[in-house]
């Protein structure tokens, strides 16, 4: 009886009773967004773009200005690219403006005064820029001087050299030289796009690819973020730093050449102040001043924004000095923002991570009222303890045919107790995770849902074998939810598939209480086929917990801890693929479901609802403030110290409820397993497993540990339901 594959997964969101708007978790989306690495430059970049939009809207800057802006942006953009590379490498280069001036004047002097052919002038200008950058690099990388002071000194030195050059050749410079190459560089076009823009685009792509995808680029980032580690890892730090300055100088030389061709300024102030503009643009774009992080694409956006702002101030006829004031103020603001953002991005993401949602529950049954099926009693109190003081947190257990009990432990172990008289027990397997749900498969091998790791099969020698730990990632999720991290309960269907509940894609298994506070549909139910492939069958469920194959093998019972309900998922028959309710509005939060021997089902409650916790489900904003302001120990959760075990049938009728009125022996029961007339009580915070003898009228002929529908289970006709 092979289960047909589902045509599509079931979205269980409507069970929460929320509207479409409740699907959105704005704080969580913000948190996920902030946590992404590419958001590092987001805030400064976003604000910079906003600023430029504002400028375009409020000043006469219009589309006619676009070529001008781009012309300026390409020259200063080359500087910004070079500066970005140097910053990523952990240094700073303040002399780029002077290199531009010197290269520009040098090119014009070479062309007009020394009469060099352009074929020589163009490479000479770039080489001259590289040579000047090499001076910086030598002083910083080899002589180990501080970058800031070194480049400040070279700024003055190169500026002085430019002034001297201009002064010496001032008359010859005044005579313009007609040359096709100058015209091409200054006013020409390649395929209709102005030359300067093409040069810039090529440089941008090459440097971007080099910085992000080549080994050299990674070395630069490594040196910038932690020099010592980089050196210890064998990266040639001095050579890398040297090369960043050479590249910066070369790009400055190219910029100088382009500006000489375009504007032909012959006064020695060419390039003065450009380093400030480049620095502003780079910071505006979100490149970190501390080094190790940055992208030339962001720097490009920054330089375009700076030029737009500058064009705005010119278009409104603002006074010359006010532009510098505006630029300096913007630089200051964005430097502060960059610092804060870098420091607090992760922290903000953490703070916003829990975004409680609203769920609607029905009215609460009063369990203290005498005479109802729910009335508190003492049935569980005298369950004889197994492994008292040895077991720490067995969430579920499994009993084999010989009466050996296997249970989990929060230290990652699976215990085996040979029988009720075994007080010592032995550690049967070490899983390395948090073993939660236990089940037996067709060949009577132990399946354990190990929280944090996935579904494992433990062989007779105690070796765990991975069955499944991944599903396909949700298409539109920022957060990678492809791992099965919070697997809770599992059961096997007649065709050999395993259904397992993953109660949250966002928290890990040990923090289930945080999930209770958040109450969002983060969970899902997954089917693992015998060949190991996985498929999500129910998505967007609130804390799906207990999974149990029904006695006829044609449906799965799914308990939702968060919504206090049990639903049935049909896996065969005419209603295959449908989810229908079985129990709703329970007075507590259900946990693992397991079959009973008389054709019914056992359902323990991990906690009970209280009037105050019900009230709080209606105030997600208060719960969010609680998670942000109140320490973890003081968070209000449902009453986890009180618990009971319930028996129900396929029609959804509650047949009986058992309590431990003292609340000491079994304050929290998370799973019960029936075997040979005894009920084994497990609690994930308890230090024992209880073994309760059942009354004879509570026991039936079915072996609850067998997979229903297989030959070992008796036929349905025998069972009187």
């Amino acid at each position, binding site marked *: 009886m092979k289960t047909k594959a589902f045509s599509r997964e079931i979205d269980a969101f409507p069970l929460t009773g929320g509207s479409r708007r409740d699907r959105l978790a704005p704080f969580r989306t913000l948190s996920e967004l902030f946590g992404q690495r590419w958001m590092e430059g987001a805030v400064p970049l976003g604000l910079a773009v906003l600023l430029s939009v504002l400028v375009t809207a409020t000043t*006469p800057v*219009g589309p*006619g*200005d676009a*070529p*001008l802006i781009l012309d*300026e942006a390409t020259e200063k953009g080359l500087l910004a690219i070079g500066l970005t590379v140097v910053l990523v490498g952990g240094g700073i280069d303040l002399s780029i403006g002077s290199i531009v001036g010197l290269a520009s004047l040098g090119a014009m002097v070479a062309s007009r005064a020394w009469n060099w052919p352009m074929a020589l002038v163009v490479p000479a200008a770039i080489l001259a820029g590289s040579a000047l950058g090499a001076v910086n690099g030598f002083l910083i990388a080899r002589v180990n001087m501080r970058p800031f002071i070194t480049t400040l000194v070279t700024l003055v030195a190169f500026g002085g050299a430019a002034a001297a050059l*201009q*002064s010496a050749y*001032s*008359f010859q*410079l*005044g005579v*313009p030289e007609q040359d*096709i190459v100058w*015209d*091409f560089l*200054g*006013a*020409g*076009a*390649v*395929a*209709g*796009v*102005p030359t300067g823009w093409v040069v810039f685009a090529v440089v941008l792509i090459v440097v971007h690819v080099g910085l992000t995808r080549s080994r050299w680029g990674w070395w630069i980032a490594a040196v910038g973020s932690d020099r010592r580690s980089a050196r210890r890892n064998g990266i040639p730090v001095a050579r890398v730093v040297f090369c960043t300055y050479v590249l910066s100088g070369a790009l400055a030389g190219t910029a100088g050449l382009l500006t000489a061709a*375009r*504007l*032909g*300024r*012959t*006064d*020695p*102030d060419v390039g003065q*102040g450009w380093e400030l503009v480049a620095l502003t643009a780079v910071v505006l774009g979100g490149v970190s001043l501390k080094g190790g992080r940055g992208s030339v694409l962001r720097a490009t956006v920054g330089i375009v924004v700076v030029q737009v702002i*500058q*064009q705005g101030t*010119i*278009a409104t*006829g603002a*006074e*010359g*000095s006010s*532009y510098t004031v505006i630029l300096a103020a913007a630089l200051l603001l964005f430097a502060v923002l960059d610092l804060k953002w870098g420091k607090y991005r992760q922290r903000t993401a953490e703070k916003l991570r829990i975004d409680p949602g609203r769920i609607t529950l029905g009215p609460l049954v009063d369990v203290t009222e005498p005479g109802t099926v729910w009335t508190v009693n003492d049935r569980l109190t005298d369950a004889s303890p197994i492994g008292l003081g040895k077991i720490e947190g067995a969430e579920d257990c499994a009993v084999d045919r010989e009466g050996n009990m296997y249970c989990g432990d929060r230290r990652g172990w699976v215990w085996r107790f040979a029988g009720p008289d075994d007080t010592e027990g032995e550690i049967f397997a070490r899983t390395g995770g948090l073993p939660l749900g236990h089940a037996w498969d067709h060949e009577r091998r132990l399946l354990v849902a190990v929280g944090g790791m996935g579904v494992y099969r433990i062989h007779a020698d105690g070796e765990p074998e991975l069955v499944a730990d991944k599903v396909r990632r949700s298409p539109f999720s920022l957060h990678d939810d492809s791992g099965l991290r919070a697997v809770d309960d599992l059961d096997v269907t007649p065709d050999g598939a395993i259904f397992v509940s993953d109660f949250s894609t966002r928290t890990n298994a040990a923090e289930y209480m945080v999930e209770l506070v958040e109450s969002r549909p983060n969970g899902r139910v997954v089917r693992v086929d015998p060949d190991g492939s996985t498929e999500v069958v129910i998505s967007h469920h609130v804390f799906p917990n207990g999974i149990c194959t029904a006695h006829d093998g044609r449906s799965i019972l799914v308990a939702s801890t968060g919504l206090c309900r049990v639903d049935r998922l049909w896996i065969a028959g005419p209603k295959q693929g449908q989810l229908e309710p079985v129990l709703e509005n329970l007075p507590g939060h259900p946990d693992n479901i397991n079959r009973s021997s008389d054709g019914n089902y056992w359902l323990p409650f991990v906690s009970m609802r209280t009037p105050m916790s019900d009230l709080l489900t209606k105030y997600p904003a208060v719960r969010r403030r609680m998670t942000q302001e109140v320490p973890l120990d003081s968070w209000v959760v449902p009453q986890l110290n009180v618990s009971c075990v319930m028996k129900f049938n396929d029609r959804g009728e509650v047949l009986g409820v058992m309590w431990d009125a003292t609340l000491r022996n079994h304050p929290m029961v998370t799973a019960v397993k029936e075997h040979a007339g005894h009920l084994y009580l497990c609690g994930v915070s308890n230090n024992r497993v209880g073994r309760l003898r059942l009354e004879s009228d509570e026991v039936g002929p079915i072996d609850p540990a067998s997979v229903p529908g297989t030959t070992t289970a008796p036929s349905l006709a025998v069972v009187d339901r």
Partner: protein
Amino acid sequence: MKKKLTALLTAAATAMTLAGCTVDRGGSSAGGGAGGGKQTFGRNVQLFDAHKKTHEAMKGKRIAFVPILYKGYNLTLNWGSTMERAFGNLGADFRVYDPNFDTDKMVKIINDLVARRAVDVLILHNPDVGVLTKQIDAAERAGIHTVVVNMVSSRLGDAFIGVDSVHAAEDITRRAVQDCEKRGAPKRMAIIDGPGNDAASLMWSKGVHHVLDPAGYEVVTTAHTQWQNALAQQAAASITQQQKNNICAYMVAYDLNAIAVGDAVADAAERGVIRPDSIGVYTMAADTRWCDALRAGKVTASAAYDVQGVGEAAVVTAQQLVQGGAPAGSTHTVAYVSHTVVDRSNVDDTTIACYKGR
């Protein structure tokens, strides 16, 4: 097959790229650009019609004056106030854009105005012979008339108005030579000019050399001061220190710089480095402050020119260009205003000396 296809595609792409490669983006047609209108006046005119038509022609026209320096400099302030008065009376929209000595900024402002077609006439003051070439080109293409004042640009606009710097330099240098001969001072002089590659400095140097070289005078050094007073003072002080009494005169290109040079010379005389009144300070143009310095005896003489006249001439030229209706770039003219040598004896009587800012 695949390789052939790739090669074909690459060739096609290269061809298209190369076809799109041009040397001159805009492709300026030689000579005239756009922007012609029809003439305002015909052969005859009714008396009161003339008045009305003039106003109509100029009303609402946008005129921009972009000098390299404005606030605090009487030279350009003087022009600016003349233009403001005149264009204001005519109902035209006149604005001054002050780049505050930043050539980059000046270029950007002009680029912006031209790109947005926000002006009809541009009055420019070119600090560097070549820097406004492309801008004037672009203005022509956009139909904007250009008038360049005082410092010529190698790409002529529609008109240039200034002073005949070479001739004026020659005149004042002859006067300086005369003074030097009278004193019997050594035949050595020093030139102090501006950036050195601008029209004014180039022509000043030319004029000075025209006279000094045949006369056998030696130009000890040519100092470039970027029009900055501090640099001029520094240069003069160091040259005086070096040369001491071995120098006869300073030929300073800018009148305000001449005041600073005069101060340096007077200071050196006071300190005893040189004999008093042994070095003359000669310049071109006569600002009112220079006149004060002249009366105080710090500077010697100047080839004053009609600064006011330049401003008026620019106004007149602008009106002519607008009314003439010819397209921008179709005419090119160079015009000079008058100049004369002033010294203490005639400074108070000469109208064109001691210009003020308003």
